[in-house]
């Protein structure tokens, strides 16, 4: 069994992991970057469509191009990348941490370090998670798996397609499948509004005349050996109307019904999970309840834009370097989730410095106001033309804005949408 020591080990070599590793490297720390795939880049590598990098690079790149830009930095750095190595355990004994990895070429690998950055990304929710009854034939895929098959392996999952859920991956796949000559018969969404980005609704559905059924539930999958169709039932005032159910014949069902941060490793290591995000509960520096273990990117909360992932992860890497330098948060306040807010990440802010927070709305609303309160007093209000759950909101809070701090022993910053 081989053993190596580093100042920091980053688990996951997607956009988040690479950005965090680069930040640590730039602070003169020795860093290992571990990914179970054969190369770095993560989920970006299968996203061959455009729409990445508008914020980060001020141009529109494909996923692999975006990944390549960041990877170039990694290659020039002193970061040691271990690819085709899966981390199976995180052991923490006080300050010292050990990551146990399995790899074909190196066998079992033990990486010792003081800082760990978790950047394992997320996985897709599946049929079982949303409990669609019916038969269990071949031809039911998650949209991401279908994307992988088409874009990387060169195979079609099927020919006549129904997409369940209007998440971004499903929308992108609706267009992708149309491009390769498949028939996309419908996108079926249980909510009254789409869960993907508006630009994707326009570019991927409208431009291809693909019907979007909002407030419709997929109530059954048909077909003994291979999918033969789905039954779709409308919802009116929150109740199913079986009398209006109809069938859409198809040979393939793609599911785009949400992503879940991939935290099995974290849970096993005793890291607390925030039920609102399904990611680790973190402080203002994105550190988990295990001192020296940080989290960023989709493993922390599901992002819609990789640009935000990189921004957040770069900061997480910086905070991790600060922690190694002995710095600790000075004046932390708990963030309280106010009206109409689904979650806020991170769950703490440091009143003594600038903070950047990401949040999601619980509602679809025009002319909304984002309100920030410190110990119940309104300290900031921001106008938003439009908010919706699928579009993440970013918010910067400067120390001045939060007053000189708080007189309370346990200050609370509340964020709400009106």
């Amino acid at each position: 069994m081989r053993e190596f020591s580093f100042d920091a080990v980053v688990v996951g070599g997607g956009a988040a992991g690479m950005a965090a590793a680069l930040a640590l490297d730039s602070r003169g720390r020795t860093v290992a970057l571990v990914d179970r795939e054969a190369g770095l880049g993560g989920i970006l590598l299968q996203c061959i469509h455009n729409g990445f990098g508008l914020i980060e690079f001020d141009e529109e790149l494909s996923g692999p191009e975006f990944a390549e830009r960041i990877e170039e930095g990694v290659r020039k750095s002193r970061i040691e990348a271990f690819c085709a190595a899966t981390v199976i355990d995180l052991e923490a004994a006080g300050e010292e941490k050990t990551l146990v990895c399995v790899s074909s070429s190196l066998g079992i690998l033990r990486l010792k370090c003081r800082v760990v950055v978790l950047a394992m990304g997320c996985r897709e929710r599946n049929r079982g998670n949303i409990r669609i009854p019916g038969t269990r034939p071949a031809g039911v895929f998650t949209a991401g798996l279908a994307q992988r098959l088409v874009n990387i392996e060169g195979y079609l999952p099927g020919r006549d397609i129904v997409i369940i859920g209007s998440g971004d991956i499903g929308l992108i796949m609706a267009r992708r499948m149309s491009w390769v000559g498949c028939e996309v018969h419908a996108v079926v969404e249980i909510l009254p509004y789409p869960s993907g980005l508006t630009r994707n609704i326009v570019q991927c559905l409208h431009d291809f005349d693909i019907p979007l059924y909002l407030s419709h539930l997929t109530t059954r999958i048909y077909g003994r050996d291979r999918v033969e169709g789905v039954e779709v039932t409308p919802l009116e005032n929150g109740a199913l109307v079986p009398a209006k159910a109809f069938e859409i014949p198809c040979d393939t069902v793609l599911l785009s019904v949400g992503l879940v941060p991939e935290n099995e490793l974290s849970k096993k290591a005793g890291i607390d999970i925030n039920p609102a995000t399904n990611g680790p509960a973190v402080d203002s520096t994105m550190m988990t309840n295990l001192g020296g273990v940080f989290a960023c990117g989709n493993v922390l909360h599901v992002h819609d834009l990789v640009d935000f992932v990189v921004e957040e992860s770069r900061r997480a890497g910086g905070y991790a370097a600060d922690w190694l330098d002995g710095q600790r948060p000075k004046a932390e306040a708990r963030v309280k989730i106010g009206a109409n807010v689904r979650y806020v990440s991170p769950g703490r802010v440091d009143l003594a410095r600038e903070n950047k927070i990401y949040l999601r709305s619980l509602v679809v609303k025009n002319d909304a106001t984002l309100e920030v309160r410190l110990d119940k007093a309104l300290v900031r209000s921001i106008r938003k033309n439009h908010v919706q759950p699928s579009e993440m909101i970013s918010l910067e809070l400067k120390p001045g804005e939060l007053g000189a701090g708080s007189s309370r022993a346990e200050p609370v910053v509340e964020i709400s949408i009106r």
Partner: protein
Amino acid sequence: MSPSREGIEGRFDVAVIGAGVSGACIARRLSAYELRVALIEKEEDVSFGVSKANSGIVHGGFHHNKKYLKARLEVQGGMMFDRLKAELDFPFVRCGIVVAAMHDDELRGIGQLYSQGVENGAIGIEMCSRERLLELEPRLSPDCVGGLYAPGGGIIEPYRFVFSLVESARKNGVVLFTGWKLVSAAREELAWRLRSSDGRIVEASYVVNAAGLHADDVSRAFGAEDFRIQGRKGEYYLLDRLTKAKPDRVVFPVPSASSKGMLVIPTVEGTVLLGPTATSTDDKEDFATSRVELETILRSAKNLVPAISESDVITSFAGIRSVLGEDFYIDVSGKAPALIQVAGIQSPGLTASPAIGEYVKDLLKKAGLRLVEKADWDPFVDKVPRAKDLTPFELDEFVKADPAFGNIVCRCERVTEAEIVAAIRRGHTTLDGIKYFTRAQMGRCQGGFCTYRILKIIMRETGMAWDEITKRGEGSRVLGGEL
């Protein structure tokens, strides 16, 4: 097997029709004798019938009255599992069974089960106070009022059991035919001439009909007894291994007249199974689940174990019981010569199966088959190392010997490439076959991550093209085209 004379694929002393747990136990038992035995299965792989979708419980010997053959075989079969496990290396744990009464009026039912168990000779069975029951199973609802404990009950991975039985049978000379659906049979001189749907022929002096749900069709093909197997569907929910609702023992409610009720089952592999329901069905191919039934399961299961949460659900499935009256029908046919009927093998068929193997061997002897023990019968199969069960030190050694042990293909169940290859080399080349052998695709992501990797390994190992790979045989092609 290459056809010898006019398309005849082989001549055998015994042909067993159906490679479910019954047929597999019978074939393996017969493999101990100097006999040529064929095991014939219509599906692409073994255990793809009723034996793959059930509760996976080795029952405690108290549910049925001993006037029934099934009750006697249950007790006998249940006791054979420890030895079988040592020989055949399949997942099995005697975790014990509790039956929980939720009202005082259910306590009478508990008393009856207890007396029945004692009469049947179920070992260690015990009546429990509420406190004792909660001590045995702390996740039970605090509303329970008392119950029963059967320490001999256990849990098993049914398909792995069948796979091991068949592997052992083949190791000892049994010839397996898959994708071979029997459609007709003719008696010629002293042997049966069996014909498959695609015109292949196998000859056998004796035939065992262990065709599960289709045992009625098979019986008719022999001109034997005319009976009808009724299907009774049971639906299930499966919960992720990280659920907080995993009991230490199998939890039963007090049974009703028609069914054992809906259970909470900790599977051997760490997940939790809820179900089954019980509804009659005339379509024996209808394995669909329905919203109504699934909601019933959740409600009823939460009644027993309140910590159950729908957010832990990772999949649902259904199995169909083969019902023929109240009991198993295992006997020498009164109408067709040299035919043994093994029909109506409903619950506790899995538990009873090792005893069914013995019982059928004796029936064959009675019907005139000469049994001479093999001197070199080998009851053991080679163990397949599972990365999930190895310590890091052990795994490190395995990787040195075979780097494929270092490639984790299925992350949820931690299955390595080496295990996938082992499955394929043992003949499991469908996605479902590989799933049942290795557990890859069975965890929380249900194949979202590993399916494409498995497809690539199948292509590499077998040389199959994309359009030859199926989920579970003909008609279930996985991919729709090539770019």
